[in-house]
């Protein structure tokens, strides 16, 4: 019988003071008792609206019920049937604006902790001994995947299961896309990503790093020289935006991409054991309030900043980061400057950052995005003394492949144009999905796009 408990079962978290100095995962995960306790809260609604909130339509009540019944293998199977990256999504999805936002319990109580449960099942699955090696691809039509982020990884896995030989080409020296170089270890341990990649390899997927399509190989090479029958473009949105304010090229100014890449991909937190340094002074200001900004500001604390702050021109209500990350950031002592717009980065005579000049804002009428437009309050300029500024104001698709591939069409933001249903681009047998199509979005949307593109590619190649 479902139990009506108002609150969700708490997730155990590592102590804020302790964790803000290391990279060990903050959330420790449910144990079996807690997971079951939480699963029992689910009402098993006649019309499970949570499913509507999930971009890949996981049959949520089914897997939650199986947890309550103690059938972990069954729960894992249901989960995987809909979401190929549950251990990752359970950790990073913005559940509060997806499944959990819809959950019926949420109208009066706290919604079921669907994300925590998803993670619990997926972690259980990772702990199981590997079964027999799955069947290897048998079909003749080879597919090349460009980019190893969630879109590419999922697309590759699905195609391999459908019998196609698949090769992923990745420009960096390690696979995973943003999951590797962007989202930090304390939120998404790399062993989770490594495990997923291992599963793909078991399926026969080949991953070739250090190949940039558009530079090392051209799109034409893939078809003509290498003999692929179709290509999936999952190149993400990795081009960092700058604000165009004075002082952006001072020493000590980073894009969030550079800052996070130095730490996550190049292990600057372990310098000088690892060879790549990152420059962090006592006070670090991060501009922006999305997931990337939150990851950056918390990383800054972990690599030695005494004071790390978020500077955002809108208010907390317009913040786009996951609510949980915001909470964790507060606990860890991050400072927040809402309604504060940077206008200039100040430096000393040697060109090092000394401060961030800002202007206070107030909220006005709603803008194009439907959010209240921040307007500057005249004469309210002030200077925040800081040693580093990290810009985290958004990323766009990287134009590299577009510039070198004739006939590949994009919109004015540089996003690839695809047919809604088929994910087909303007080029025959070339498909695309993930951030490269949508602009910077979410892991689950990229994963979902990879999955549906795989079905479309299979249909294109096999007429099925």
């Amino acid at each position, binding site marked *: 019988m479902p139990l009506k408990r108002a609150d969700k079962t708490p997730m155990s978290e590592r102590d804020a003071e302790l964790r803000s100095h290391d990279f060990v995962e903050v959330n420790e995960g449910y144990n079996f008792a807690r997971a079951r306790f939480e699963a029992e809260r689910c009402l098993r609604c006649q019309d499970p609206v949570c499913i509507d909130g999930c971009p890949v339509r996981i049959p949520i009540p089914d897997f939650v019920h199986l947890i309550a019944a103690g059938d972990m293998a069954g729960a894992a199977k249901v989960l995987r049937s809909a979401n190929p990256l549950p251990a990752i999504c359970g950790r990073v999805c913005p559940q509060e604006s997806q499944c959990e936002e819809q959950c019926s319990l949420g109208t009066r109580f706290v919604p079921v902790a669907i994300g925590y449960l998803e993670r619990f099942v997926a972690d259980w699955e990772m702990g199981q001994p590997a079964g027999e090696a799955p069947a290897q691809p048998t079909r003749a039509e080879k597919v090349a995947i460009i980019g190893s982020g969630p879109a590419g990884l999922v697309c590759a896995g699905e195609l391999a299961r459908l019998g196609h030989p698949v090769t992923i080409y990745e420009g960096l*020296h390690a696979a995973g896309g943003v999951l590797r170089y962007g989202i930090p270890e304390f939120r998404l341990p790399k062993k989770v990503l490594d495990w997923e990649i291992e599963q793909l390899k078991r399926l026969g997927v080949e991953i070739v790093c250090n190949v940039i399509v558009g530079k090392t190989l051209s799109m034409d090479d893939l078809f003509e020289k290498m003999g692929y029958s179709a290509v999936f473009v999952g190149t993400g949105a*990795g*081009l960092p935006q700058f604000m165009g304010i004075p002082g952006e090229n001072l020493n000590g100014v980073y894009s969030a991409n*550079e800052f996070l*890449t130095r730490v996550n991909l190049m292990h600057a937190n372990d310098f*000088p054991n690892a060879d790549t340094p990152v420059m962090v002074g006592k006070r670090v200001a991060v501009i922006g309030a999305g997931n990337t900004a939150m990851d950056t500001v918390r990383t800054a604390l972990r690599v030695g900043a005494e004071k790390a702050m978020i500077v955002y021109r809108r208010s907390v209500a317009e913040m786009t980061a996951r609510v949980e990350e915001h909470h964790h950031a507060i606990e860890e002592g991050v400072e927040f400057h809402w309604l504060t717009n940077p206008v200039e980065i100040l430096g000393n005579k040697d060109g090092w950052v000394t401060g961030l000049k800002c202007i206070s804002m107030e909220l006005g009428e709603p803008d194009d995005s439907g959010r209240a437009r921040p307007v500057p309050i005249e004469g309210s300029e002030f200077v925040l003394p800081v040693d580093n500024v990290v810009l985290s104001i958004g990323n766009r698709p990287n134009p590299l492949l577009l510039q070198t591939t004739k006939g590949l069409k994009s919109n004015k933001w540089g996003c690839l144009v695809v047919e809604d249903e088929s994910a087909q681009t303007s080029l025959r047998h070339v498909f695309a999905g993930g951030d490269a199509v949508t602009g910077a979005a979410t892991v689950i949307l990229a994963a979902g796009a990879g999955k549906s593109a795989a079905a479309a590619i299979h249909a294109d190649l096999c007429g099925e």
Partner: protein
Amino acid sequence: MARILEKRSLTPVTKLFRVESPLVAAAARPGQFIIVRVREGGERIPLTIADYDRDNGTLTIVVQEVGTTTGYLGALEVGDDILDLVGPLGMALEIPAGGHIVGIGGGFGAAALLCLMRELSARGDRTTIIIGAREKGLLILVEELADICDDLELCTDDGSAGFKGLVTERLAQLIGGDGPGRPDSVVAIGPMPMMRAVTDTTRDFGIPTLVSLDPLMIDGTGMCGGCRVTVNNEVKFACVDGPFFDAHQVDFEEAVRRNKMYVQQEQASKERAECRSLAMGQD
């Protein structure tokens, strides 16, 4: 992974490697570069493609040992693998055909002129190469460079070979009509102070000049923005928009300053690397 097929010591701190990398060799164009990483936990560093051989699928790179990663690389031997090698990166050099083109190389920059000047010579341009060093023994690839251009001009600080003085002083003489004569355009590759001096030398004469900027890089694909430089008051990412830029528009002061951002860390890293190799030697 890229296997090292040949290694030559050009000076005590400059090594030439020929490495197996068929895909990069097939796609490379003069002026482009690669990024390598030589050990787990290692840094990614950019290196110019000095030459490529499409038929044999090989690249030639020349490395000047200045710090941790170039030190590790310099210690590799024939038969070793370079852990990661990606490229070709950046834009190929573009110079209008038909004129007298002077290529100037300092340090590893002399090597970077190899495939570049050969291609210009092959398409029919009149080509002069000026290379310089402190003394004769530090000039690199003299024979190879002599083969691929119309005139090779050597400069040494002590006069032990060729012209006694700086490459820029010799360049000024050429502009004045001496030797192979006034260039129609100039390409300079080498240490920042040298490129800056070349830029100052050609500016007043309005001679189109390209320099190969070498900011710190990580990904080399436009993803991090760490390589940003200011050219003509615009911010450019050197890894994708460069590495060649109109020298007379480059904000050198900023470029030099940004390159020095990690001097202290580089020193710490080098000391750690030396400890590491000492420890390895004791095994």
